[in-house]
């Protein structure tokens, strides 16, 4: 799963569509804007990579960046609102973990959108062949 997430985030970096198998039962109720908005920031993509490897405390994440703890917490909130990560509390510690379904659903949307145009262009080809035969 972690390898798959890396492929997903790398591919999103390159703005390419993905051919992935996906779970049809994936919950689709998500804000695509929030997902793509969150992923447009390199720090947030980096945070997502870190938590895709292992669950981390907010403090453990923050030490990797030249930012205040509050600033890192804001980035984490943005990822959380987009449902890309989950937050849980263990005593005083807040633990951040990845929520992979959202990334899967987002890449599924992009793949579908691209396929829609590909199929439309193929359909035009069939149509042009049909009118050519009539001429």
């Amino acid at each position: 799963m972690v390898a798959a997430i890396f492929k997903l985030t790398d591919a999103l970096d390159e703005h390419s569509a993905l051919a992935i198998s996906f779970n049809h039962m994936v919950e689709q109720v998500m804000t695509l804007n929030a997902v793509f908005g969150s992923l447009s920031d390199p720090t947030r993509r980096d945070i997502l990579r870190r938590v895709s490897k292992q669950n981390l405390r907010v403090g453990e994440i923050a030490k990797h960046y030249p930012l205040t703890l509050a600033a890192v917490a804001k980035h984490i909130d943005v990822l959380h609102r987009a449902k890309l990560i989950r937050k849980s509390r263990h005593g005083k510690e807040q633990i951040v973990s990845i929520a992979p379904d959202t990334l899967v659903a987002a890449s599924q949307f992009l793949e579908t959108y691209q396929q829609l145009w590909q199929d439309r262009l193929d359909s035009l080809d069939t149509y042009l062949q049909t009118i050519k035969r009539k001429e």
Partner: protein
Amino acid sequence: MEPIKQITLEKTYDASVETVWQAWTDPEMLKQWWGPKNVSIPECEIDPTVGGKFYIVMEAGEAMGDYKGTLWPMQATFTAVEPNAKLSYTAQAWTEGAKEETTIDQTTDITFTEVDGKTTVKVTAAIYKAGPQAGMAAEGMKYGFTEQLDKLESYLATNK
């Protein structure tokens, strides 16, 4: 404003640029190919001039099971029109009855280039905003388009 996603596709057709341009700008011709086989086009209005409107509705047919009767309208405004060369529009596409949740804001640029009697169409589509349920709408369309691909395959096999 930066798009959240941009895709570029291109395909070359064994037809003159005039024919391909007509297929993209004549409402009766658009109805023949814009949607997949099990989707009909009940409405299509197009005014290919700068500032002109392009309104096209796809309706899911019998073969789409639970999606049957679902309407997917697209309302667009042309931003560039160069006959036999280029079409650009900004558009909103949505699932009827759930416009707020499913709307996709997009821009589309289509260029037409003829070389030796064959015409290459290049489509660049950029998404600027996608509603929270846009994924579901796209999933419905995907079902339709997959069916279309299967039909295209069998069509090509029987017309060799």
